[in-house]
């Protein structure tokens, strides 16, 4: 009976990355009848540490298409649909509508709020999962708890998205490869429990997992009027919503190419700031700089001299862009630039 339900089920996974890969494999292995995969990214070398559906030969290929191909060889009897697109509020409703259950394997806040809102509007259960470094969170949203007749969603957990400095990604600060493996597998577990009606899914509950401590901490979410303040009330509001703006993830800052950076620092005295974490590799000693980790940036911003032009770098250019945004908010006339592509690009360009 359970196997029948699984064979009839239609599950959509948004993100075929660290969380998506293990979840997809277990759902395909279990025989979920229809599996949808949404991902617009291509496979990169740095993904292979945790995105275990992919191999070295897949580098440069579409994740959605590659994942679909691998899953087909794992279970040829199920139907796999892939969407090699970025999920946006313009296509989300159309895509999600075809599925019974949604799994959030995305890697940024704008997408998480978007998926959540779409699931609430379409009334689909959402299996949430998120990771960073050595920790992960998992829970089930938008499913009625039969015992006390209530439903909660992501906005009840986090009504407001975090500030720029705290919105860091796995690509920037890293994640222990096994952590998304564990959380993604737990997401597949919750999905199977919901489909078959067996066991207790994490409805209105979140589990927080710490790999280093081997600890699980669970807590209950309650719904609250405040959580719905920023929620799009209907389909039209959803289609008009600007999720990037809501999460302040649209970072339009002045950047400096690595060549212009090298040229500038030989011509004039500039202030160079590294916003990576202390001890973060790759180590740089080819030019002098000050280390101010992004998380402390706002507190220490007054210590930065504005006499010279300021160039901020990080690993790939994302954190430094956030730092420039912070500087410009406080000192709008300051000449500050983010190193485009980060120190990774600089090292590549200088062939170190």
């Amino acid at each position, binding site marked *: 009976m359970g196997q029948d339900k699984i064979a009839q089920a239609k599950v959509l996974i948004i*993100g075929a*990355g*660290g*969380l*998506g890969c293990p979840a997809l494999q277990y759902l395909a292995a279990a025989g979920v009848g229809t599996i949808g995969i949404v991902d617009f990214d291509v496979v990169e070398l740095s993904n292979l540490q945790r995105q275990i559906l992919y191999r070295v030969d897949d580098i440069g290929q579409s994740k959605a298409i590659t994942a679909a191909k691998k899953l087909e060889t794992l279970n040829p009897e199920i139907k796999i649909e892939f969407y090699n697109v970025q999920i946006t509020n313009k296509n989300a409703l159309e895509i999600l509508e075809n599925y019974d259950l949604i799994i*959030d*394997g*995305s*890697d*940024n*806040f704008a997408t*998480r709020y978007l998926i959540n809102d779409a699931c609430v509007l379409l009334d689909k259960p959402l299996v949430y*999962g*998120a*990771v*960073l*470094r050595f*920790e*992960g*969170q998992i829970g089930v949203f938008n499913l009625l708890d039969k015992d006390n007749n209530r439903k909660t969603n992501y906005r*009840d*957990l*986090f*009504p*407001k*998205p*975090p*500030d720029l*400095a*705290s*919105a*860091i*990604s*796995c690509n920037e600060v890293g*994640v222990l490869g096994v952590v*998304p493996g564990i959380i993604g597998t737990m997401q597949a577990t919750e999905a199977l429990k919901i489909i078959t009606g067996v066991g207790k899914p994490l409805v209105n509950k*979140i589990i*927080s997992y*710490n790999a280093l*401590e081997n600890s699980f*901490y*669970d*807590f*209950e*979410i*309650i719904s*609250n009027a*405040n*959580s719905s303040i920023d929620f799009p009330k209907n389909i039209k509001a959803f289609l008009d919503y600007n999720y990037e703006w809501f999460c302040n993830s649209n970072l339009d800052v002045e950047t400096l190419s690595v060549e212009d950076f090298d040229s500038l620092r030989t011509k004039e005295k500039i202030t160079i700031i590294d916003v990576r974490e202390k001890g973060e590799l790759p180590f740089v000693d080819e030019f002098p700089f000050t280390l101010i980790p992004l*998380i*402390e940036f*706002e*507190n220490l911003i007054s210590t930065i001299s504005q006499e010279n032009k300021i160039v901020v770098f990080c690993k790939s250019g994302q954190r430094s862009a956030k730092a420039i945004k912070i500087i410009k908010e406080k000192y709008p006339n300051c000449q500050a630039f983010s190193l485009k592509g980060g120190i990774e690009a600089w090292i590549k360009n200088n062939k170190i």
Partner: protein
Amino acid sequence: MEINLLAFGQITEITGKSAWKMVEIKDSNELIKNLEEQFPALVKMKYSIAVNKKLIQENTAITDKDTIALLPPFSGG
């Protein structure tokens, strides 16, 4: 009166510890004020607070032996 504090994710980096005790805190607003005085970097952080494993959404009374968890969002996937 003594309460237990638990920190997760980036909050642990700010506080420097994942578990500790505090005394004489009457409600969550006072707790937040106290924490922000001790750890100014918390002012800019968004995080949710659970009291005895139940998320709170507004100022909530805190009593002896309560456990408070400070839960930041993660976005990684």
